[in-house]
């Protein structure tokens, strides 16, 4: 199952006002949940939890689909910008400068979002996605490992 299929399921959920969806097949499991959080205003915050589980099961359970109560207006899934390396995470090009990006900023694939320093080399990390930054996941000057989520982005 790839992102296209997940987006198709989400569209179906929106169309039919479904808030929870779970599917288990022989070699993977997926759970999607839509919810409203935070204050009022015309634009709400949507959180979706996506859990993809690839299991090497010998005796696979039969496919199962559960549908829960109707709920909320449509939302777009958020993606993580993950660290491609190990090192120390910095929000700004230098201690005196302003951070590269903040929450709410629009980025494109070439936008530098942070620096990861490893072995005395400052590596500029690019967004590699187009969208709006919705969350900063790591504190400035903290160590990060390979694959660690650095930012959440809502693609557009």
């Amino acid at each position, binding site marked *: 199952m790839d992102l296209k299929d997940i987006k198709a399921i989400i569209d179906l959920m929106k169309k039919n006002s479904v808030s929870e969806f779970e599917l288990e097949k022989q070699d993977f499991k997926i759970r999607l949940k839509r919810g409203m959080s935070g204050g009022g205003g015309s634009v709400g915050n949507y959180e979706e939890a996506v859990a993809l589980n690839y299991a090497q099961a010998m005796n696979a359970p039969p496919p199962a689909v559960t549908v829960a109560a109707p709920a909320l207006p449509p939302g777009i899934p958020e993606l993580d910008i993950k660290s491609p390396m*190990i090192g120390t995470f910095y929000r700004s090009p230098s201690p005196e400068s302003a951070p590269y990006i903040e929450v709410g900023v629009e980025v494109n694939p070439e936008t530098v979002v942070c620096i990861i320093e490893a072995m005395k080399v400052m590596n500029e990390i690019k967004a590699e996605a187009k969208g709006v930054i919705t969350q900063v996941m790591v504190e400035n000057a903290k160590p990060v490992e390979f694959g660690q989520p650095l930012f959440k982005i809502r693609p557009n």
Partner: protein
Amino acid sequence: MFEKILVANRGEIAVRIIRACKELNVRTVAIYSEADANSMHVQMADEAICIGKSPASESYLRIDRIVSAAEITDVDAIHPGYGFLAENAHFADVCESCNIRFIGPNSRAMSALEDKAVSRALAKKADVPTPPGSEGVVDTEQDALAVAKKIGYPVMIKAIAGGGGRGMRVAHNDISLVKGFHTARTEAEKAFGNSGVYIEKFIENPHHIEFQILGDNRGNIIHLGERDCSIQRRNQKLVEESPSPLLENPKYKKLREKMGKAAIRIAKEANYTNAGTVEFIVDQAGNFFFLEVNKRIQVEHPVTEEVTGIDMVRYQIMLAMGEPLRLSQSDVQLKGHAIECRINAEDPFDDFRPSPGRIEMYYQPGGHGVRVDTHAYAGYTMPPYYDSMLGKLITFGKDRREAMDRMSRALSEYMITGIKTTIAFQQSILQDPNFRRGVYSTSFIEQLLSRQFPAQ
């Protein structure tokens, strides 16, 4: 005293290193690939850093990532285990230049023994017999034919950068020599990034006997006795024991002293420090020949630990800290007998095909004189990206008979479901009359398999 050590390895050896660190009150950092997120060494370490995707080339072989992980966790030293980067001189250099101590031999010794051809030359300088063969790397098929003519068939074509039993081919005549020469070079380039090969006399049905050495940075070097590793399938060791039944034979009593001294001569010639193993082959007439030096802790080190009472990984760490050896050769006593069986996730009934997957049930043997070094547990999924060894079973007895009986008893206690293992095959080795008599050579497994599976 080191305060923190990064373990640059995985699986059972990573667990082994973490155990030694814990006993020394040293904090540990585990590194892992995405496939090893649930591995035992990650659970046991104080800190863990993900360093990349599953293939070793994107994780356990990535010097830059490992050193970055070492920097952000602020470790004093790195233990490289065995395989991966354990014998990579460049990795050792990078660690030292970043002020991180490399727990292994010094760079000079690594260069002096950098490949098998260079090591052969060093052994000759140390007045240690080597199998007749080429002076160094053989570059052309004409040279290969000339060497073979001089030493006589059969010969072995060996990759100078090979290791762990890989990169070797036998040739019985000119035609197979020429063919094998070119194929070996191509394979070596692909597998080790170095197409250099040399040629040695192929000694048939030898015993593979290796000596464990330990050296400090003041030039003191001792050996901890031998291990007999002749029980091999396709040059991969399956069973190891100490002492060697061959060297216990009164006819060969003097060999142990001669080989032990030869091992130390080679180590001193190379200015060796920390732990290492000098490999020899012994022919049917009791002549011994130097093969190579393994510049790392080895898989089968527990066998020596059991008969000497010496914790080798602990010693590696102490020696790396600059501690003197504090052991003389006469302090080393071999007591009793120890045997190790490697337990692999392979199907012995299907040509030893690897059997990765989820371990459903896992119960391991125990009791007096039984030791299990493993990272396996019930519910653990063996990843397909690395070697198939799921653990080592070691038994100790007051003599060889007791160690063997205990090994048979222990093997029968294992309960593992979900994956295939070589446990049943190991049991058939332990029950074999020739093995029990201690009469075997490196052709033992081949002969056993042809009896068990005559059609093959």
